[in-house]
């Protein structure tokens, strides 16, 4: 596993064993979850490109990644997720209140609401379930008029208002996977999610056929661009997606 030197906090539990806590200070926040929603859903219909469960896990991953990059939550080496509230007043101040990103603040509030520090896997499943992540991101887009809301029998669907804008995001990410010239952490996260959810095998257009293998290869090359908690998060998305495939379908 990589160490990026972005932020390290030691947490000493009552037993005295030291646990490393990773946080990020990659402010200002960029709304990468919006991009992920457009990439992982059809540009015309707004239908998810992957199965319901995997699509939900991808959105949950994007939501948590955004919150981590915004500094609203931190992830420790044991994959526990910490909201900024529990680290407030901490001298490092990596996790902090960030009112510019309301969704990240909501996520931190919800995570703080739980008395126990829960592992990333649990939060991924929680936000994937019942379209929770999809609704949080979709409503933000709807408020800015970027998607149309459709209430359907089996939940809500957000259709892009600007189809070409949605298409452009897909083409852009495919081009990045093909060329491997990644300079922004948010792009690296999107490529990581493409690989971890398997979307890379399906998102490619005729002009830019890409694969998961390529996405993994690009991800291996970005190295220090991403802070440690994002690596932990991406690995947990991959694990959750694998477990969902193995699971019995009800």
């Amino acid at each position, binding site marked *: 596993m990589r160490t990026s030197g972005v932020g*390290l906090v030691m*947490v000493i539990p*009552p037993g005295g064993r030291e646990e490393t806590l990773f946080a990020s200070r990659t402010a200002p926040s960029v709304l990468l979850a919006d991009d992920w929603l457009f990439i992982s859903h059809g540009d015309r219909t707004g239908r998810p490109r992957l199965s319901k469960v995997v699509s939900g896990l991808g959105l949950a991953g994007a939501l948590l990644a955004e919150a981590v990059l915004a500094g609203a939550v931190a992830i420790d080496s044991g994959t526990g997720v910490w909201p900024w509230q529990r680290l407030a007043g*901490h001298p490092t101040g990596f996790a902090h209140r960030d009112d510019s990103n309301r969704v990240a603040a909501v996520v931190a509030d919800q995570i703080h609401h739980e008395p126990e520090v829960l*592992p990333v896997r*649990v939060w991924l499943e929680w936000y994937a379930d019942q379209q929770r992540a999809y609704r*949080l991101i979709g409503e933000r887009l709807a408020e800015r008029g970027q998607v149309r809301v459709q209430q359907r029998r089996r939940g809500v669907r957000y259709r892009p208002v600007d189809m070409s804008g949605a298409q452009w995001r897909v083409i852009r990410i495919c081009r990045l996977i093909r060329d491997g010239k990644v300079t922004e952490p948010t792009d690296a996260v999107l490529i990581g999610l493409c690989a971890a959810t398997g979307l890379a095998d*399906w998102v490619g257009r005729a002009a830019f056929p890409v694969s998961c293998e390529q996405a993994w290869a690009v991800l291996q090359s970005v190295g220090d661009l991403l802070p440690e908690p994002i690596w932990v998060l991406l690995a947990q998305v991959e694990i959750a997606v694998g*477990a969902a495939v193995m699971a019995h379908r009800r």
Partner: protein
Amino acid sequence: MAHSGHIPHPGGVRQALAANRLGLWSLVFLIISAAAPLTVVAGGATAGFAVTGLVGLPVTYLASVVLLALFAVGWVDMATRIPNAGAFYAYIRHGYAAGGGETLGRVVGLAAAGVALLAYNALQIGLIAGLGAVTSSWLQTRFGIEVAWWLLALLGISVIGAMGVARIDFSGRVLAVLLTAETTVVVIIDALAVTHPADGTVSLTTLNPSHLVATGIGAALAICITGFVGCEAAAVFAEEVRDRERTVRHAVTLALLITGIVYAGSTWALTVYTGPDNIIDAAAADPAGLFIGIGAVYLGTLFADLANLLFITSLFAAALAYHNTVARYLFSLGRERALPLVAVGLGRTNRSGAPRNASLTQTALAVSTVVVWSLLGWDPLLQLFFAGTVLGGTGVVLLMASTSFAVGLWFWRHGYSSRWRHLVAPFTAGAALAVVSALIVDNFELLVGAPPEAQWPALLPGAYGMCVIGGVLWGLWLRHRRPDAFDVIGLGPVATRLGPMPVQAPTPAVTSREVGL
């Protein structure tokens, strides 16, 4: 945004997620449907009388429950302690690594994966051939329609293959309805048999434990234990149940008890109906029709039709379960990149999140086996259904034996909370299952019902030897050439492309101090 991700109350997240998970009875139905009780009672058990010539089958079923319970106590405890360890080879990896080092664990784990792949494929293909043969003969005798067995088998394979790729499983509710109907039919026929005893007396002699020391008991034990194959699926679902420790343990106990009582009760009822002295001849005369025939005599053809239909659906449900088991094994191995690089695609999924390539591989294997059998004109019932399920059952018993030792070794190394549950039971079960495996291999031609002069049955168990040797050699090659893949053998979904991950998150308290950057 208030309703998005609203948490009902502190601590509500785990609770809300638990509501999505499998409950006790869903799990019980899932595992019993893989055991296919009606198939066992109407097909396997009657054939068992004919093949072994022993009347003590009912008490042998009860003895098998005891042996399997002994296997289950430690294994279920280990299942709840190692996350993501659904498949046998995962326990074997962890157990033997604890007993003899990481390299040993991984190599033996890979060999076990090979054995499991052969075993579950043999079971699946055997069941699908049985499905074709049984349906074909039922259509002919009942409606006079002649359809070749292989055509029906291929039809079954296509439906199962399509369900596998589209990721459609029987829901817990459908399985519950089918199983309840199956069990009701079995109980009704049992009641008819017991209320119409041969000489007017209900004899309990076949339940006498003295039958357990008869000669040829090994073959009988083998047939009985094979009837419970499918129950081991309980651990695969450990990740998906509400309360790992309690749900899995209770589900295994219930599944063993229910199937055990159904098997022992039905075989005993059969001996009452024919009279203990005549059961062997009656079973030999009509192994596939004896049990359902009782229903036909007293309740008419309509009841027999229903029973036959349920027999067919039970074969189908079991074949689907084993198809998914094989697909999971292949997917898992593909994800771990433990297979040759050309097979890495097995770890991929399609858009609907199904392990498509793994599923298609199993379907292709099944199709080619059925095609070869039909071209060579071999008998589907004897040489594919019996041979396949017995061969598969042998593999599962071998895996159970090695898993038992792995469980004992694991607890011995990592600390045990109960000497009896974690050491004595696993090692005893391991030794007993090893003896049973040896007896099965010894009696293999008898078990598949082949004529004594036939040479082919003796070769079949040797296939497992090949799997073990192949697995070990491949493991050693991997160790040298692709150590990253070698390291994650048996980790399943936890084998990530981003390096090893902690599998269970500790939850440290909130006290911190800075250590700089």
